[in-house]
């Protein structure tokens, strides 16, 4: 075979590979055509050492003001009573529980990305898991406020719902889904926190090693828990991480399943339905990914980490949103069908009232945001145009909030006996609490991206090495195969070698 022919074949193979392979998980930077550990460290950790940015300060000021608003709203609620909210009889649960479920749902993306995708060895999770996990954690913190605040006597609710051994021998009611919620949400919070923190340890050690000044070294050193980066430490670390992923995986399904039981277990038309667990979980993932997109698209730009969170990541998240959006749409359709097919008049009316009742605009908004908007992601353009994705993700967030409002409030406000029907109007406190938790969430996110690496740096470095090895292996194999007269891309190229790494 002539050298020309070989070169030709090689060029063709390269072209074929370029066509077959999607863009890299780690893109070259502006001034560095090829990333190495140094450039990754620099691009992903260095911004922590930089002086505080004025824009960041402004945003923090704004969101902190919102936290102040939240504090005031909480004080008013606890001081004066739940009457400060719009809740009434029949609508015992208004914005409070709507917000709770919305936030818990948003928290689902983190665990899904970090745990399930890890177990499925999805490499693309690496660049986004840290950010999503932090988001999960903060979302659960926001969510956790509402079940406590929405009770009439939060000072008692905060511990009476836990099965502590009281001298009176009074136990909580284990038949109540709210009781299950306590376990589900607290387990979820604990696991998410551990998972997130465990993942942070190697990066904290990196920060410790690179930090200038005693205070920084002390703080990061304390948080790094004496991480040395030895092979032994990595071995334990990996096992622990995998175990936590194993524990967290069922939680992705269980938390929202149990949250959905709050409604499915009741006798209320519009609530009492077996479709809720899968439909709630899908909705949660849907909203979680939407929130990741909403926050990550600006964050990757501002933090200049577009080389590790690439367009390919965004596109894949869009696909997840499309899938879960379709599941949710199916859920809506089945609910409506079941209400008609069940021949249960109360059930029928509950869904008729969603479509045609006084609060129907929320239902139509929900249908538009959750069923129409995600269809944008069928198109390549829709998945890759960042503005389109960003706007769509915000619509989905709104749509999922509406979904919860529709399920909880619209079902409650007109139930069995028309005599007890009433309208629901939120108060300024309701709005302040919701806006306040959004601000609390953003404040925590801002603090997070300022003082901690927003991307799992050690994992990126690992991924880079894996990819480099894979590329080398592929080259070699291709060369060998060419020598043996065979063409194409070897499957073995995808097998990732296991390697010990530096911290």
């Amino acid at each position: 075979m002539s050298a020309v022919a070989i070169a030709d074949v090689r060029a063709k193979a390269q072209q074929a590979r370029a066509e077959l392979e999607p863009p890299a998980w780690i893109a070259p930077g502006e001034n560095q055509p090829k990333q190495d550990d140094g450039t990754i460290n620099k691009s992903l950790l260095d911004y922590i050492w930089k002086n505080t940015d004025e824009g960041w300060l402004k945003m923090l000021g704004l969101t902190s003001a919102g936290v102040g608003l939240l504090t005031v709203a909480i004080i008013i609620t606890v001081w004066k009573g739940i009457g400060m909210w719009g809740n009434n009889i029949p609508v015992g649960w208004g914005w409070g529980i709507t917000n709770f479920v919305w936030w818990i749902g948003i928290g689902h993306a983190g665990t899904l990305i970090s745990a399930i995708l890890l177990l499925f060895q999805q490499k693309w999770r690496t660049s986004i898991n840290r950010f999503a996990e932090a988001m999960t954690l903060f979302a659960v913190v926001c969510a956790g406020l509402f079940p406590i605040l929405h009770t009439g006597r939060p000072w008692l609710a905060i511990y009476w719902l836990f099965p502590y051994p009281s001298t009176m021998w009074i136990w909580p009611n284990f038949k109540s889904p709210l009781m299950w919620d306590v376990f589900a949400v607290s387990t979820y919070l604990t696991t998410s926190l551990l998972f997130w923190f465990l993942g942070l340890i190697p990066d904290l050690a990196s920060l410790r090693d690179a930090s200038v000044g005693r205070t920084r070294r002390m703080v990061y050193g304390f948080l790094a828990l004496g991480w040395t980066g030895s092979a032994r430490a990595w071995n334990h670390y990996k096992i622990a991480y995998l175990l936590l992923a194993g524990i967290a995986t069922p939680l992705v399904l269980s938390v929202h399943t149990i949250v959905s039981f709050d409604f499915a277990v009741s006798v209320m038309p519009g609530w009492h339905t077996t479709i809720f667990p899968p439909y709630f979980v899908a909705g949660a993932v849907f909203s979680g990914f939407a929130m990741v997109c909403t926050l990550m698209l600006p964050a990757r730009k501002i933090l200049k980490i577009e080389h590790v969170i690439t367009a390919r990541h965004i596109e894949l998240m869009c696909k997840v949103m499309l899938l879960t959006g379709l599941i949710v749409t199916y859920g809506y359709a089945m609910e409506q069908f079941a209400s008609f097919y069940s021949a249960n008049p109360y059930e029928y009316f509950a869904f008729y009232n969603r479509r045609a009742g006084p609060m129907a605009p929320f239902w139509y908004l929900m249908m538009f945001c959750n069923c129409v908007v995600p269809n944008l992601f069928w198109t390549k353009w829709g998945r890759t145009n960042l503005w389109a994705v960003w706007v769509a993700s915000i619509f989905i967030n709104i749509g999922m909030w509406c979904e919860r409002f529709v399920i909880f409030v619209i079902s409650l406000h007109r139930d069995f006996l028309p005599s007890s029907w009433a309208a629901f109007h939120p108060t300024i406190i309701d709005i302040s609490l919701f806006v306040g938790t959004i601000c609390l969430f953003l404040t925590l996110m801002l603090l997070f991206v300022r003082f901690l690496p927003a991307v799992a740096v050690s994992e990126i470095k690992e991924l880079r090495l894996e990819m480099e090895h894979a590329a080398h292996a592929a080259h070699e194999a291709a060369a060998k195969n060419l020598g043996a007269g065979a063409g194409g891309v070897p499957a073995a190229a995808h097998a990732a070698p296991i390697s010990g790494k530096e911290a």
Partner: protein
Amino acid sequence: MATLHSLPVFDEKGKTNQRPLSVLWRSLEERIRGGADRQAVAAEFALGAAELPEANNGTSRRSFVQLMGASAALAGLAACVRKPREQILGYTRQPEGVVPGKALHYSTASFLGGRATGLIATSYEGRPTKLDGNPAHPASLGGTGALDQGSLLQLYDPQRASVVKSRGQERAYHTFLVEQLARANQHAQNGGETLRFLMEPSSSPLLASLRERLRAQFPKAKFVSYTSLANEGWQEASEAAFGAQAETRLDLRDADVIASLDFDFLAGLPGTLAHQRAYADRRDPKAGEMNRLYVIEPGMSPTGGMADHRLAARPSEMIAIAQGLLGRVARITKSNDLARFANLNPALSAQQSRFLDALATDLVRSAGKSIVAVGERQPASVHLAAIAINSALGNSGKTVRYARSLLHDPEDGPKALAALAAEIKAGKVDTLFVTAHNPVYGAPADLEFGKLLKSVPNSVYLGYYEDETAAQTNWFVPLAHDLESWGDGLAPDGTVTFQQPLIAPLFNGVTAAELLASLLGEADKGSYGLLRAAWDARNKALGQGDLVSSANWEKWIADGFAANTAHADDVVPNWATLEKGIPSGAPAAVSGIEGYFATDYKVWDGRFGNNVWLQELPDPITKLTWENAALLSPATAKRLNVAQNDVVEIKAGTRSVRGTVFIQPGQSPETVQLALGYGRASAGEQIASGKGFNAGELRTTSTFWSAGSVEVSRVAGESNTLAQTQEHHNMDEGIHRAIALQATKEEVESNKLEEVQDNRGPQTSMYEPVKYEGFKWAMSIDLSRCTGCSACMTACQAENNIPVVGKEQVIKSREMHWLRLDRYYMGSEDAPEMITQPVMCQQCENAPCEYVCPVNATVHTDEGLNDMVYNRCVGTRYCSNNCPYKVRRFNFFSYTSDYSDVEKMVMNPDVTVRARGVMEKCTYCVQRIERVRIETRVAGTEIKDGDIHTACQDACPSQAIVFGSLHDPESAVSKLTRNTRRYDLLHDIGTRPRTVYLARVKNPNKELA
């Protein structure tokens, strides 16, 4: 540290030395050696060897731990919340029968409208907390109206007037008495020529005797009675028909056909409780012949809702309708007396003619067993037509009785007041004593009574509040509450009824009798002395000797009334004068929108305006709270292009008021109904003031009940959100719902009750049925008996310490009533049927609220009650969300923390006052169950059926509610659960409620089908 030594520490000292060490030895060597070794051996195992030697610092481990424990405990004590100091004072002399915590019951009475209703008051340590009907009293038969129930709260109103005042200055009561006595002496000189009394309508024998004595002293003095709810048309008709002031006494027990011409006798208003009971007793086809009720009325009323046939008619059409009815009856019966009316045939609409044809036939068919009853709004000619029909059909003497009025001043309407006003204007009145309720507010607007009153040189007002009238009089004297007064009065059938106080006047109030006696120099006798003296005198006059020696007095007071004192002085119509009163020609038609006034079910003539229980009580029809509204029919509202909550200006001639539109199905076309008693401007009544609008501003002496043609126009840009507890949702909105069921008499008799049968019976369950031991409490509610009068709601509020929440909270749908009355319309908007259904906690055996509570705060008892544990409730409201009946109520705010000391006195000590953030609901009056249980246990007897009554059951004038145990197959409630009309509310859900409903029965006339 020497003192520490002296502390006796458990188990420490002495024990080690209990046995001399020398006794213990392990070997001979050891024993021989003794000394230090022996000590060391002992120390190895000795008790307390682990302790620090005492000699060191005097503190052992044990004593250290004990002391630390004690210090920690004491430190903890110091940190405890300091409880407010409370004084406990024992009785130095125990009053007879008073056991702290145990209720005593006394009979007493209320005199609304001048007629007595016998009551039983419950009192705890001298503090009345509940009023119920006196079952033996003919006007109550055990039932009460919402007003009687609510009057209890008024006793503890902190805004009550408490001081005698002269032109705004506080004065001693003694000063007042001295001045009045001096004035009396002056008046005595000219026979009281310029002395006038404006009295509350009354039938009291005590007041009668005082008036007699005053008349003897001041022969030229005049007594005038006035009420703003006077039955003016009747007074005129009575004079025309009987030549005397008579009254109508109905006996509905034997009435087969009842025609009500705008007579609202099923609303629990004063004087109608016995009618309600008699009516209800005839509404079960299986228990006897059913009666049939026809109602013709301008607006929707509870009576109209219960009617078998209802016709909405404009007030101006009522005369023609009465003429038409009279003419038809005359033609059918061919009675001689009625022959003169046979030509009456006014022009009527086809619908009206058809209705009257059927009604007239039915009335005649049941001659002697029918009734035509007329309400207070109707003019004299309608009353006369009814008198004619009742007399001619032989009803009078059987179902209807016309007898001389029992009131002192039967003419208590605008004419009497106008005569007094004319005298005042002419300067003929020097001294005016006012005991009538707030005439400045209640008088027709054209009299400008406030101004006139101010012009009287000496005026005295005995009032419960420093109200509009108090502001215009020289002297103001606080009135005692009914429960603070001795008094008497006559029941509608003439039975002498006694009122005894339950408590000494809280705010120095005096009674009307005391005020009158002050002119006789007998004010110091007190209300008891006066009553006693009057009855002593009367007894002597009757030849029964001294009351003290006769056993009568004690018995009368204990019973609350004197048995067998019902009497009637019958009158017969004079047909000639009667005929003149009925116009033969067509009455003048009223063009445009016709305005008319209505008695309010809650504030009545305005006197209950400051009563928060009644203000927040939903109106039986509109379900409005806290104010009145301008009621328009849907079609009229549409034509006027106004919507609910719009503010409109209602103009009658030169007078006008602004009110809020309320769209009322069943309202007659082109009319506006205006409830009286609101729009108060009383300085002393902060709650009553500013609520709603004063429809009375449109009232004149000539347009007392009907304002005639009015203009209704929208006030641009103004609206007022009305606080309704229930909106106008149709029962069948969106889907058909089996909620409040009704059937016809034929369907019940032939047992064709598919829908009822579908909603009862056993249900499949995966679980073993629970075996309830002891008792199985249950309740039955007969919709055939329930008229929706709402007495039960107020009774429940009083019994269970239910807070009121205010208009804003009601608008937010946060009212706290444990028991609500659901009102549904059926059929068209213009001529709907109405049904009322009381709904409280259904005490489900399979309760959806119980399993969802995360803290076990609502649990099931072994007798099947669904209990609330307030202390345990954290307020998740999950139970309420999951309650299909939505009967749970939540304390969104701290509704009970701002009660004043006086207000706290109304609380039932057997029921917890709930705190903020806690869920509450109907308990089947569990405190009453437990009280009876304790009593029977102490007495060593068993609880029998009928021993336990819930508060709603006690109050219900028509006995629609029955409570008892299902384990006793012979109990009243067990029998009712086996009734063919029994059904369960929302049976499909499988909650297995313990409260069952009995479908309403209607007895329609086939001729109107």
